[in-house]
């Protein structure tokens, strides 16, 4: 299959494909400019007559469940990343699909991790046609070198919900790994030997997919409480030895940094939040995974104690540090989209104020509002940021796909979006003339905090004014870029890329904000 898509220039000046895997692609029109009409996708009507009245939906194996779901060539299978790098189910799903002789399946994960490297083999053998979801490590390399047959489509967590809900992606079979479930299909993530927290990433699939399979290693008698996933949406339940390794949900990005330079970035970010007046009684914040974000939370907590203020709510990714804040009374609520460590899992189980949320409540742009825009300050990372404050999270400057979007794009609608990034890493500039891939438009990035100081977007004169008198060093982003180039030895070469588009980057409303080309 050749991919020689016709391109059109979008509102951030990027040429993007008008056709994506046979579907029409809509170029990004600007924040809030695209308003699709029509109705949401509806799954087929089912009848209790076709399900056991006993409620026991168990089948012997994943293979049998897939077979009874009618797995055929070219179908779409959804899986989810609540075990992060400890997921054991997605690989088993495709091993079973391969045994059943399925071909050209579209894999639609909510995120992929290095543990999913075996999917490369399934793409080589033809079982998987292409992946629509984040592409990490070996999978990113594979797609970047143009080896994947279809075009990768990268969406945010909210964008994945939007795509399912709007019918852009029809999920034929969703396979949900559940740390605890009953034979009816009710399932929860907050308990059981493989407890990982919440199953929010699987919620859309459970509601909209044609068929839903729950896989668990902890079958409990009916009813499984709480039911994060409702059994009424579930076709089959499969018992397996293990669904995931919960210790591995703490995967790399969830350890506090020890680097003095990263700590400095975290400290500047916290001081910015304090000195700009965002830190006040009843404020709210979200800081993502990643060592710098975690350190930010630690500094912010000290400043909250010093100022004697409490937050009205905090958005997770929950972790040990947010849980401490909750349990010490610095916030009454954690609105959690994903648990990043086992303290988060425990707290979700034990603390009434630790509420599990889904991409629907937190991030979906085609809903009647979402939580992300209510947050006062959101601290995020990026691989690159440019003079227009456009930012990239999916590729590095060499043009290779390295990361997924996660909730990053969705979080940009916070009242103050702060990118906390080093200005360069081991002679690789982060601040550039122009980002390799636009994932977030500069109009939504308010502040860039680096080890060399804080750059405030000129679109936010209110923040510039608020920081007058602060001793946090401020630096114009142009000056920062010049300094980075002075240290690194000039501007970096541009990646040598081919014409072929290997990935489309979707904005939160389903339009295409940029695309990624094959690297040589």
């Amino acid at each position, binding site marked *: 299959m050749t991919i020689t898509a016709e391109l059109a220039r979008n509102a951030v000046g990027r040429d993007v494909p008008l056709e994506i895997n046979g579907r029409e692609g809509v170029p990004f029109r600007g924040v809030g400019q695209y308003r699709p009409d029509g109705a949401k996708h509806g799954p087929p009507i089912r009848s209790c007559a076709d399900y056991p009245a006993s409620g026991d939906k168990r089948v012997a194996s994943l293979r049998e469940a897939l077979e009874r779901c009618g797995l055929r060539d070219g179908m779409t299978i959804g899986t989810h990343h609540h075990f992060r790098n400890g997921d054991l189910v997605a690989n088993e799903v495709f091993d079973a699909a391969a045994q059943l002789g399925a071909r050209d399946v579209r894999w639609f994960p909510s995120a992929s991790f290095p543990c999913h490297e075996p999917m490369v083999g399934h793409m080589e053998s033809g079982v998987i046609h292409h992946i629509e979801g984040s592409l990490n490590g070996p999978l990113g390399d594979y797609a970047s070198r143009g080896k994947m047959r279809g075009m990768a489509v990268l969406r945010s967590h909210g964008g994945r919900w939007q795509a399912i809900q709007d019918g852009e992606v029809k999920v034929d079979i969703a396979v949900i790994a559940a740390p605890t479930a009953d034979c009816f299909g009710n399932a929860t993530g907050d308990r059981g030997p493989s407890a990982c927290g919440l199953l929010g990433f699987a919620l859309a699939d459970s509601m909209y997919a044609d068929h839903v399979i729950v896989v668990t290693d902890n079958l409990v008698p009916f009813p499984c409480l709480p039911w994060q996933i409702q059994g009424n949406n579930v076709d089959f339940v499969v018992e397996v030895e293990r669904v995931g390794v919960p210790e591995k949900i703490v995967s790399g990005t969830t350890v506090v940094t020890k680097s*003095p*330079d990263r*700590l*400095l970035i975290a400290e500047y970010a916290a001081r910015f939040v304090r000195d700009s007046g965002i830190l006040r009684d009843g404020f709210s914040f979200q800081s993502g995974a990643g060592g710098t974000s975690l350190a930010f939370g630690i500094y912010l907590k000290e400043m909250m104690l010093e100022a004697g203020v409490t937050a009205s709510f905090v958005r997770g990714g929950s972790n040990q540090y947010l849980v401490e804040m909750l349990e010490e009374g610095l916030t009454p609520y954690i609105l959690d989209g994903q648990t990043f460590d086992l303290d988060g899992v425990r707290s979700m189980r034990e603390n009434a104020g630790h509420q599990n949320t889904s991409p629907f409540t937190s991030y979906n742009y085609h809903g009647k509002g979402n939580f992300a825009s209510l947050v006062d300050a959101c601290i995020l990372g990026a691989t690159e940021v440019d003079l227009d404050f456009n930012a990239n999270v999916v590729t590095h*400057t*060499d*043009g290779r796909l390295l990361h997924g979007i996660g909730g990053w794009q969705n979080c940009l609608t916070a009242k103050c979006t702060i990118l906390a990034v080093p200005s360069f890493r*081991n*002679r*690789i*500039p982060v601040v550039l003339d122009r980002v390799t891939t636009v994932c977030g438009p500069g109009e939504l990035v308010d502040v860039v905090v680096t*080890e*060399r100081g804080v750059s405030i977007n000129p679109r936010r004169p209110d923040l510039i004014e608020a920081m007058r008198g602060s*001793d946090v060093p401020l630096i114009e982003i142009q000056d920062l870029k010049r300094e980075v180039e*002075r*240290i*690194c*030895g*000039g501007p*970096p*070469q541009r*990646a*040598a890329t081919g014409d072929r588009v290997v990935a489309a980057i979707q904005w939160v409303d389903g339009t295409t904000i940029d695309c990624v080309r094959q690297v040589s």
Partner: protein
Amino acid sequence: MIEADSKTAHEYPGAAGPRGREVRSDCWIGVEPTASGGFELEVSSTVEPYYGLAIRELVLEGAAKLGLEHARIRVEDGGAYPFALMARLEAAVKRTGHSIGGAWMPEQHPDARTSSARDRRRRSRLYLPGDQPKLFVNAGLHRPDGVILDLEDSVAPSDKDAARVVVRNALHAVDFMGAERMVRINQGELGLEDLRELVPHGGVHLVLLPKVEDPEEVRTVDRLLSELGDEQIALMPILESARGVLAAQAIAAASGRNVALTIGLEDYTADLGIAKTDAGSESLWARSMVVHAARAAGLQAIDSVYSDFADEVGLLASVREAKSIGFEGKGCIHPRQIAVVHDGFAPEAIEVEKACRIVRAFRAAEAEGRGVVSLGTKMIDPPVVKRALATVALAIDCGQLARDWEETE
């Protein structure tokens, strides 16, 4: 230029720099001069997609500038900044035994053309191992009063020659963001060789002399600096033995270049055959001796380092103790210690208040054209005014006093 196939097994007669997949912001370079054929260059780099061309261009430029005509050169790079890459190439060429054609220096940083004031603030000095260029580019961010590029204890004897070139290039080119540019040289003849390499290229504000026991060691360095045409480089002798401490007074007075005197407690306690404790009573006499010798000669007294960088509480207590017995500075072995050290040396509120009153009186006298400063019925001597001005400046830098305090009250 010919890009050769992999020659990882090849022995290069000249090689410098760390090697391996884990190397970050540094590189290994192997050089083998050949009889003919121009330059055969092979580069592998973690930053190939970004700076691959720039690296090749720089290496070829350097090979020619350093006097090579034909050579096989291999670069294994983990993202070395240009100043470090240049230093590794130069050290590798030197190690082939090939004589160096001429100077090949990175672009000079403006701070490298300055010298530092005799009585500038020296509360914190951050030690940076001389052969770890990856630690240099961000060292200034943590706002130490000084950075010390160390050629002595942190560099293995077999790497002294290579580290010397790295340190020379760094002092010349790296932006340490206003920190005083210090270098700790080796003892004896090796130290003099260090100076012959460093001084002609500028960028050295202050030289720390290790394990000084005899004032003649200081005078030798002083003479060499003058012979090298320098008039401005300051000296800070380090006393690290019983002999050194007993000679403190003579050492402090040995050279007009001396601006500070310090003590190295690890070696000092080893010399005495005693354990170094947190309480430090075993070294109190020696440290007081250093303070007195320094004061008597008009120098700053600077304390040793606090070696547990994870213990900020212990560090702060140690700084306050040092301040209380007359020290004005402390060594830092980790960037996160700097802010704590500055905190510890920050003036007390009561000191700041008194200093402000004296400065106001001084300004009033200035405005009225009076030569004599008085506060109430007391006359204030010029040294007291000078000290008050320094306290006020320090209080401003420590965030205890607004920059415009004189207008706001």
